[in-house]
């Protein structure tokens, strides 16, 4: 019979007789997702409800006790931990818009025919992203120290005595490192998004008499709104998770405390304070805060993207 062959091949393509086939294909993702994302979250949540308790002088051993939400209460009651959230919020409110504006401006500039040596300049802007964040912070750390910084020495030469690691300035010095590191990658994403916009739209606008600037602001930006919101969202999340740069700069200035950002506070609680249970509760709180901010930004972005594309 000739029936068997077609059926077999149909099966191969449709998988109709083997309903488990799709699951096999997604199994690697699901396994990694469960092991490296869901499981750690569950472990953190469970850990946050317990505490390792000693008694007396502590030399009689420890017992793990269920303490409910006490760790959360302690974390929320820690003014310095909460101040860390305020600090990254202030940082984010300034650093993220500045970085996104810079990245968008550069992407639009590279998208015009006006720029010579585009490949070179794009590469130059992108290059800092290839430098690991820790190394970037080390580099800038040298540039922020008056006796070893050619930058500050040059400034002193013209009579300006800048202290970039003072309590009032250090936040912006950290922001500068992130700006230097991440503007490039955001520019590349926005530039790539611009390449997908049909050129006919620009021509139509030009025929209507729109200037390059008008096209950039009125056509290009709305067209790549989804990419802008994606990069903004990941930048905001990155801000909440701020750790590498301040942790490294902490080694050159005492004005970055051990709990300067929420992530640093978690690190300090678990490694320096040796209280992984409290650190778990703090991590859960940070995760929740990130979730809330992400949902808010996404909500907002969906609405504005819709409006922007509707307008075209």
């Amino acid at each position, binding site marked *: 019979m000739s029936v068997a062959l077609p059926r077999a091949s149909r099966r191969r393509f449709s998988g109709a007789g083997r309903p488990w086939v799709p699951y096999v294909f997604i199994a690697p993702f699901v396994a990694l997702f469960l092991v490296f994302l869901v499981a750690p979250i569950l472990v953190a949540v469970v850990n946050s409800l317990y505490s*390792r308790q*000693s008694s007396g002088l502590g030399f009689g051993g420890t017992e793990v006790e269920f303490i409910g939400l006490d760790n959360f209460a302690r974390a929320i009651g820690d003014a310095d931990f909460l101040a860390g959230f305020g600090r990254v919020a202030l940082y984010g409110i300034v650093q993220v818009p500045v970085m996104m504006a810079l990245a968008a401006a550069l992407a639009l500039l590279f998208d015009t025919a006006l720029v010579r040596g585009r490949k070179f300049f794009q590469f130059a802007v992108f290059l800092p992203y290839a430098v690991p964040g820790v190394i970037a912070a080390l580099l800038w750390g040298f540039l922020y120290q008056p006796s070893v910084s050619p930058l500050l020495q040059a400034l002193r030469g013209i009579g300006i005595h800048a202290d970039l690691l003072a309590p009032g300035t250090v936040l912006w010095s950290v922001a500068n490192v992130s700006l230097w590191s991440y503007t490039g990658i955001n520019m590349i994403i926005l530039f790539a998004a611009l390449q997908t916009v049909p050129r006919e739209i620009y021509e139509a606008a030009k025929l209507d008499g729109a200037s390059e600037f008008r096209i950039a602001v009125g056509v290009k930006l709305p067209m790549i709104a989804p990419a802008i919101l994606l990069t903004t969202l990941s930048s905001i999340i990155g801000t909440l998770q701020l750790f590498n740069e301040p*942790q490294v700069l902490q*080694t050159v200035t005492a004005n970055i405390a051990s709990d300067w950002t929420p992530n640093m506070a978690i690190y300090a609680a678990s490694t320096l304070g040796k209280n992984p249970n409290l650190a778990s509760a703090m991590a859960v709180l940070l995760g929740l805060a990130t979730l809330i901010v992400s949902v808010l930004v996404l909500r907002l972005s969906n609405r504005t993207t819709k409006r922007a594309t509707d307008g075209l």
Partner: protein
Amino acid sequence: MEATKLTRPRWMRPASFAMAGALALVGLAGCSASGGDEGVTEIEFWGWVPGLEDLVDTWNEENPDVQVSFHRMTGDDGQKVEVAVDGGAGPDLVQLSTHNLPDYVIQERVVEITEWVADEEENYTPASWASVSFDGGVYGIPQGIGPAGMMYRADILEQHGLEIPTTWDEYLETARALHAANPDVYIANMSPSEIGQWVQEIQQAESSWYSIEGDAWKLGVNDEGSKLVAERWQTLLDEGLVTTEQMWTPEYWALVNNGTIATVSYAAWFPTILAENAAETSGLWKVAPLPVNEGSTNSGDSGGAAVIVLKNSEHPAEAAEFAAWLNGSDETQDTLITVGGLFPSTQNGLASEALLSESEFYGGQVVNEVFIESAENTPATWVEGPNFGTIQTAILDEFAKVVTGEQTFLEALDRAQAAGVADLESRGLSVVD
């Protein structure tokens, strides 16, 4: 830089700038429990003292049945050890600041080794042996201590016709005279990030962060001795007589090299580091005893280290035997002192001629003569206790706000004390006021 240390020793100091990169880049090195071929016991040992590789080789040649493998600790390896041990793995032996040993005992990460090493006690200084003994048990073999001395720029003092200050009152006078004579010169750098310099001076003042009352801990972060030291540095700070750079940074070494800082008070292991980082000032430095408090001959100590057997070791007896050999045998003392830069906590080490070699950097001075005397004058009042790390972090965070003028040292100490008490109580430990 980590970490911050002969409370955390210098080579694993998270506060050391260049190490910050290593901290983030070094992956988790193998932390497997020991196992091995039949008949041969394998011991894994993590430590940071220079030259340990050679000593381990010597042991392995002499002891074919017990083979030790060595891992040099950098960056945050100390924290990795804790995680590994809590997770059921980790090396057999690790080097540890004795300030952190009580935590290891309380968290049950360390094996009591009394039965194998009790007869070693007589070779160790009483203070160092006490630092590894808790509740009648021995939990490690001491490896070096940190008696304090004062490194000073002899040329600068001489230039301004100033005597070497021997008391802290004279130190203040010298600071004033020096700064008045040359506003670009400061008597010292008050690093808000350096707990060891704080610890040595409060120990000199017979303060102790911990003491035991009955079955409870008592914290003394803001006790009388600490207040005395706090007022001293407050005066120096308020009168603008000290710089406040963070120690170990390029900026700090620049100030040391260009003659801005006239004295550095620190432990016996510091002279070697100073010589390495300020090579161009060779011959200008000398070492004098740490200035004393009025009416006292006390010196101070920033803390020592120990080699301890971790709980997941399958061969604690052999591991303890190796640790005892490494730190206490006659054949290892010279290497530990000359290559390792350790100030010995052993009687045979203190008797070693290697300790009394002249140092070119210090104009041919036998600098350890100062530190030997310092060790003899260190009061036995310091008690180690749980959660040194939390108090250390609290103090350093608060001190950062002191040098910027936001608060005073006394206020900083009160806050750190409160943070320490709250932390111990949250762990279920008994604390008395």
